[in-house]
């Protein structure tokens, strides 16, 4: 395992100075994600107009991995269509759970700093929670939990 590659400067920087941190006045889409195992809570709001994510903001309480993941996610999906965002959500989830071959073409770009998470099963959920919550918001589900049975993005059990 090489966790050194996880707490890289990019991730630490996004944790310190999260992008798109805050709330939106009148979001068109909104969801709250929750990881009951570690108490992480993330609120994501979007303004989608003409099939494009015009604005996106998040806030909440979480570990550095989750916060940096949310920050980089919001930066990555801003300006994209919901369909393109879903592609990214899928790729990120596949990467985090070790199912994505990073040698094949993908849209993740700098998000690959999170690839090391696949070696830390108890932390996978931390990185995935924001994506999970975005997926819920895009599909008009208002609240999701990493521990619900019908969760399509169910990852490995987290540490209690």
């Amino acid at each position, binding site marked *: *395992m*090489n*966790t*050194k590659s*996880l*707490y890289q400067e990019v991730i*630490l920087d996004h*944790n310190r100075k999260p992008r798109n941190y805050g709330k939106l006045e009148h979001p068109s889409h909104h969801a709250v994600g929750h990881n009951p*195992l*570690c*108490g*992480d809570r993330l609120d994501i709001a979007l303004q989608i107009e003409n099939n494009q994510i015009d604005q996106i903001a998040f806030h909440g*309480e*979480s*570990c*550095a*991995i989750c916060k940096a993941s949310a920050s980089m996610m919001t930066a990555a999906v801003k300006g994209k269509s919901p369909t393109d965002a879903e592609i990214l959500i899928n790729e990120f989830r596949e990467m985090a759970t070790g199912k994505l071959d990073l040698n094949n073409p993908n849209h993740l770009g700098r998000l690959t700093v999170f690839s090391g998470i696949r070696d*830390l099963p*108890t*932390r996978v959920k*931390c990185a995935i929670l924001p994506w999970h919550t975005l997926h819920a918001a895009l599909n008009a589900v208002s609240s999701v939990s990493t521990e619900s049975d019908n969760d399509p993005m169910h990852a490995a059990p987290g*540490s*209690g």
Partner: protein
Amino acid sequence: MINADVAMTSEADTTINVEKIRTDFPILKLNVGDKPLIYLDNAASCQMPQQVIDRLVHYQTTQHANINRAVHYLSEVATMEYEKARHRVQQFVNAREDREIIFTSGTTDSINLVMQGYGRKFIKAGDEIILTTLEHHSNIVPWQMLAEEKGAVIRVVPINDAGELDIEAYEKLFNDRTKFVGLIHVSNALGTINPVKSMIAFAHQHGVPVLIDGAQAAPHMAVDVQDLDCDFYVFSAHKLCGPTGIGMLYGKSSLLESMEPFKGGGDMIASVTFEKTTYAAIPHKFEAGTPPIAAAIGFGAAIDYLCSVGMEQIAAYELELLHYATESIQGIKGARIIGTAAHKTAVLSFVLDGIHPHDIGTILNEDGIAVRTGHHCAQPVMERFKVPATSRASFAFYNTKSEVDALMAGIRNVQKIFL
């Protein structure tokens, strides 16, 4: 015999040869990446010495057969060894008789047995069950299930800012509807040692039986169930240098006899016809099916090992480690201890300003340091201290002051990374 005495003898009586003890634990030689393992997650599960591993191998290579069933040589040996292990547990907790010791799969299983066998029979609608804020989820959820089923009510003893039970509030909770008390001996999340003996005496004045969850007490101090006068006492072997999958329930024989069996099957009957089954006497009434025989024997061997080190010596040495760790972390700016009770076992639960426990745990792991991060199956405790989670270093008698130093260096490193 428990906390007060141990505290008094702590300085004088630390006759533990840690370096020698460490050679008994093969896993302590492990490296994590390129760093030596520093195992500080003993409250979750303790490591196993070679003596216990050898005992398991010896059983499995020369003594194994099913117990209580056949007249052949191996079955008799296995049955005898299994019952010897029960006797070791009986001596360890000073129960009156072997038959007061039931082998279970662990603490959780023991509590569920009492809930099913005692609770479902004797607790009725409107009755009250007293629990405390410090309980592990395993001593909360079964009682909630029972309360839900019966229409009983759960009352909760609060804690103060140090993580100590509010005894006055506890005593005020009693009334004529109070029918059961479930009480954690030592908090797994904070290390608080509760004054269970006087709390049990108080409950008995009201005729109320008390179950003590000793999962975190039995590994760290001498326990005497007769002196405590508890009605039930439970713990797991794996937190006490023994195998997983085995634990014990002590119950006063009159109570155990009054209870319904929890599981039906082989080995727990006196006779079976389709018209009527007569149950076996205790303890077998509660041990349906083939038990984990090797694990039970390993449990006995773990007790032998701990007793060879000495429970008083273990308690005294661990207290010294706790004092050292507490002083050390107090020197780190931005670190805060959660749980500062006057009487504690060697559990150091802490938070760092602005840094989530999961990040702390992952970065400490890079240094080979194993701590637990999360809510420690004690969400009501986390809620009380208004933290989502803590990092917890929990020490055993094989840990050293230099490992405490490594933990402190690791914590400083975490702070530097997040600066």
